[in-house]
């Protein structure tokens, strides 16, 4: 048994504490917006916030996430209002297949919290997610759009 606090709600789940957080979120809690891409913390599709820090959830085990505030893509909007990154993503039509975009958006949201007006160099340093469709040009433009929103 483990208690995970996800998007402000406590979930008591019957899971081996060594299970990757990604799979606990997807299978035991049932929130599937967080995606599996590589399982070795390379691609970033599984990025969530743990105590506000963008983290690749495939590389964190459940026991290390207990007692922390976990935010997934489903919890990014507050009180039914989309986060400014989500808004910019819609306005700028960023996603192509979209599979990597939950992780991309979570990474960008964390960046903007730390650096509200990131430079291109800040974006390059902080956003290391893989996108095979190649949305990077639109991602960069939308990050600046969100920063100026």
């Amino acid at each position: 048994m483990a208690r995970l606090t996800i998007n402000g709600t406590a979930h008591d789940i019957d899971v081996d504490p060594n299970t990757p957080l990604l799979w606990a979120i997807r299978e035991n809690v049932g929130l599937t917006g967080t995606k599996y891409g590589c399982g070795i913390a390379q691609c970033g599709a599984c990025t969530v916030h743990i105590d506000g820090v963008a983290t690749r959830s495939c590389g964190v085990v459940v026991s290390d996430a207990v007692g922390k505030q976990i935010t997934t893509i489903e919890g990014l909007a507050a009180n039914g209002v989309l986060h400014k990154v989500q808004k910019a993503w819609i306005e700028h039509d960023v996603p192509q297949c979209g599979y990597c975009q939950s992780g991309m958006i979570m990474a960008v949201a964390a960046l903007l919290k730390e650096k509200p007006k990131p430079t291109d160099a800040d974006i390059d340093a902080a956003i290391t997610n893989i996108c095979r469709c190649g949305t990077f040009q639109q991602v960069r433009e939308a990050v600046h759009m969100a920063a100026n929103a």
Partner: protein
Amino acid sequence: MNYVPNMNRRSFVVGAAAVGGGLALGLDLPLGPKVVRAADGTPEINAWVVIRPDETVVVRVVRTEMGQGTLTGLAQLVAEELECDWSKVTTEYPTPGESLARKRVWGDFSTGGSRGIRMSHEYVRKGGAAARMMLLQAAANEWKVPVAEVTVDKGVITHKGSGRSTTYGKVADAAAKLEAPKDPPLKDRKDWKIAGKPLLRLDTPDKVTGKTVYGIDVKLPGLLNAAIRDCPVQGGKIKSFDAAKVTGMPGVKKVVQVGDSGVAVVADTWWHAKTAVDALPVVWDEGENVKVSSATIAEWLKAGLDADQAFVGNENGDAKGVIAAAAKKVEAVYAYPYQNHAPMEPMNATARWTESKCEVWCPTQNAESAFAATLAASGLPADKCDVYKTYVAGGGFGRRGAFHDYVRQAVLIAKEMPGTPVKLLWTREEDMTHGRYHPVMQCKLTGAFDKDNNLTGLHMRLSGQSILANVFPQNLVNGKDPLTFQGLMPQGQEHAFGYTVPNLMIDHSMRNPHILPGFWRGVNINQNAIFLECFMDELAHSVGQDPLEFRRKLMSKHPRNLAVLNAVAEKAGWGRPAPQGIYRGLAQMMAFNSYVAACAEISVSNDKIKVHRIVAATDPGYGVNPAQIERQVAGSFVYGLSALFYQECTVKNGRIEQENFDTYNSMRINEMPKVETILIEGGGTVWGGVGEPTICVAAPAVMNAYFAATGKRIRSFPLKNHNIQMA
């Protein structure tokens, strides 16, 4: 439309409410006097259009959305002719089972070869136009006025003379009973108001909130999960496995052999299934292919560069004779590696099998091909099977088109647990090592010049793997794989050679290693563009000519190739000084009936290449959504440059060595050049594709710039093998 996996989903009910002649038709396949109703009871106007009483316009789309924007583009084309309110448009996917029951009323489901829009634009537009005519007729009938006096704007129908108006939603029921016009006229491009515009995609909002249901996210009551290991050597088999070692592990329900080469564990969660299958002792019979390595393959291909036997793909004059007698000869050998598609969503499918029904939920680029795989694996007839495609696929790039090995496996597993839905998900490692790889190819190019430095002859000898020989052998022509010559074919074909060379020979020595080849986004133009366009650059420099001017002299009979090349040269500033330390390179190609060109600007420092800027031009004939074309073009450079710098699948002991993104890298945002897209709508009767063509000019444009910067030619890829990094 949100895809809701529903075990009882039946979108269409063929009802017998008969009035009038043949209605509710796709255009060419009359069903007889029946009204076809959508699941909610709304009668469809025709196969492409359903209009609900609340004015929602449902456009049926059978091509797959996997990121390329086809869903939105096709809806724009239907809406354009329909003259409906775009804000009311939604979409839905018919299933292949439904299509079969209606004599393939929706035509081909295949979404590969950049054909999503270019191969269906005419009949979907006619579907929209026919629906509009029927809706207007219904209003005219109601008002007892000539239909010519009735007009429509955004789904509101008006009769000016009497001042009456109504809406599509109100007359849809009556319209559905009218006879469909046989050959409705289509609008001119210049009159487009919805198509041709950079409208936002229909599928974006749910993608930014995590709501979009991908195949990996499918949920069904009682769902179990499966993880699989297939023999790491293609052609190998399972000798034995020790199920008892894992049956007691957490959550494990069953260990299932899958065909003769795979074994899966079914468990309550996928993590449990994966943990158990990893722990499962398996003994493989790896077979003869275990002796094969990248080196043995390369040696075999090398021998083909001078082999006597070869299939001729394009020929004029006497290239070999001219080369033998040439005043000057230039020769080079290039090589292209195996590559994995690596879509972000690994292969997966969910299946439920009973003796009376087999259903599959999956991401696929061709639901009909997935359906065929389902039939074959299930042992059930077509009327007892169906495939429910997820709303979007998490990338496809050709991996999910002709190959439904993952569907076959899912059905075989589900068959062992009748009535229980089972979701099979591959690990990234399984995905990387069981791909349908970009084929390997080598190429020897020989150019001949006369004493005045005119190119008089060119011989391109390809040596390597045929995709068709493995995938669609019935499409070989007397043993030849015509697709090998993409971008090099004779004039008039959809992948035509873009130069006039007086003596030309392009031929292929076919060598098919056991590694399974596949259609990898762009397919054979990826290597052919590198071979041809880098060599054109070599030829130009060998006679001291400007690469642009050299090409132009050979392109007078190829005006659309020339137009895209000129467009990028002009916008990039070719012929004018580049900024300090910046070097430029060019490439052009024609494929999938589209003309593409790129000018790359790079700098080089200590074996690091920084790609700063790419100017790209594309002429697909018609631009249905310029904003999405721009995104496809920009994204193409991510796909093409990742391949150029990082991607190779090597073979050792018969198996693919790279298992994940740590050894099969893909470029990140810090490496992304600024891409400036020029869209040229060259018109014509044949439409071109967008999703694939541009990828092939990425690598040669950058490599030609690299030569400009360093004076060095690199002729084998990826660049990481030469210790060159992407900055």
